[in-house]
């Protein structure tokens, strides 16, 4: 017997897809920013260290909701100021509307990049410095040593924290409804208000998040095995 979703079924699925896309793209951005910021924090350059410290401290100290509104509305105002200038200078009449999806990805990516930064930083510091020294002693360049030695050894320490950040990020995607994105939470909210059947819509939403985390757990388990190679030695 198919469940009657009062016509909200397809939209609920679309919302779920949007949630998944938003989460995955934000994750990629957050990982990239986190890795960059962690490297900056651990670098020899003073200005880079200061910049990265400001980033991770300021972002982690402000609620996600406030940052999201700030980045979205503030971002729009910034873009408007820029286009006004260009228009005044060139005599044109451009207007750029900030795409809420892109804004959502950027906001979540920037916010969770700050958390990823701390996770990566701790993990880099946990790597045995002798292993890095050996890489240098054998003529590896900074980049080669990073790619072949520092990064894989670091990932083993970072994975639990990264996974944790990812779970929090996934759930924070629900915040994007305030900037006008129709993720699955927003659809369920609309449907509940119209039909007064909260369980009918909210339980599938909960299951939707669980489905995403289940799939990601499989991926994380695979990564764990990969970066545990050589450490968990009972098996070999």
């Amino acid at each position, binding site marked *: 017997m198919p469940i009657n979703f009062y016509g909200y079924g397809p939209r609920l699925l679309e919302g779920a897809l949007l949630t998944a896309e938003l989460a995955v793209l934000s994750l990629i951005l957050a990982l990239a920013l986190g890795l960059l910021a962690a490297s900056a924090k651990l670098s020899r350059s003073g200005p880079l260290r200061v910049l990265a410290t400001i980033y991770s401290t300021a972002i982690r100290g402000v609620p996600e909701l406030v940052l999201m509104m700030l980045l979205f509305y503030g971002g729009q105002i910034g873009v408007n100021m820029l286009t006004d200038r260009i228009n005044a200078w060139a005599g044109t009449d451009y207007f750029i509307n900030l795409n809420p999806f892109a804004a959502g990805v950027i906001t979540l990516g920037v916010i969770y990049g700050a958390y990823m930064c701390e996770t990566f930083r701790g993990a880099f510091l946990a790597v045995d410095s002798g292993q890095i020294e050996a890489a240098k*002693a*054998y003529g590896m360049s900074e980049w080669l040593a990073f790619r072949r*030695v520092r990064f894989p050894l670091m990932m083993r320490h970072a994975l639990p924290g990264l996974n944790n950040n990812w779970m929090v990020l996934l759930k924070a995607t629900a915040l994007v409804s305030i900037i006008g994105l129709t993720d699955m939470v927003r659809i369920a909210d609309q449907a509940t208000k119209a039909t007064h059947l909260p369980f009918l819509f909210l339980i599938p939403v909960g299951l939707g998040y669980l489905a995403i985390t289940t799939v990601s757990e499989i991926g994380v388990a695979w990564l764990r095995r990969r970066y545990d190679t050589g*450490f968990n030695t009972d098996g070999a």
Partner: protein
Amino acid sequence: MTESYTPLVVRDLHKSFNGNPVLEGLSLEAHVGDVITLIGSSGSGKSTFLRCMNLLEIPNEGDVIVHGEPVKFCVKRGERHPADWKQVERIRGKLSMVFQGFNLWAHMTLIGNVIEAPVHVLGLSKKEARERGMALLERVGLADRADYFPAQLSGGQAQRGAIARALAMEPEVMLFDEPTSALDPELVGDVLKVMRELADEGRTMVVVTHEMDFARDVSSQVIYLHKGQIAEAGKPGDILEKPGTPQLKQFLGPRF
């Protein structure tokens, strides 16, 4: 051939950490086939001297000349840096180092460790590096451990594996920093045996060690460091049997 070049020359090396002088004017010349042992009490600067040779520490003054090629330095904001990191990388590839704590890469198998730098630094094909690597593991008695991870090896095996990794670079000079100090006494012999064989086949080596028998039997030159200076240097028969300075007499123990 460029046989005429001396593999390693160090001239008037100075190094200080945060203004505290640690090395004060050290020089050394390693000719082909030389085995130079560095001895001295803890904190005398042996490791720092060795680490300056492959630029893991940057000397504040002095020259490091590898196979006729002086390392180029520049001074930025009052601090001395290598002028060309590519050159440093190339030179490091000619001076394989064996560490006290082995420092095998934990996430790679033993053979993976041995072929890593030959493949990625020297540009050898995986196949060729593997063939050469297996032959080296055979030499150090670890052919059957090729696919083990470092954590699955005993200390002695790990250090012999680390020596195979060093040999795989076909280095001009091998640098050893107390290679047996982290080993259980019963495992020291295997590692020293491998090192004696290397010396016998004419490898150029600089060895920091507390193994006086090894220093006596194998070295062409013994250098005694005291407080960052070369207090005595010469043939092992002279230095170790007829120490001149009271410090070395004390260091060598009750016989003197």
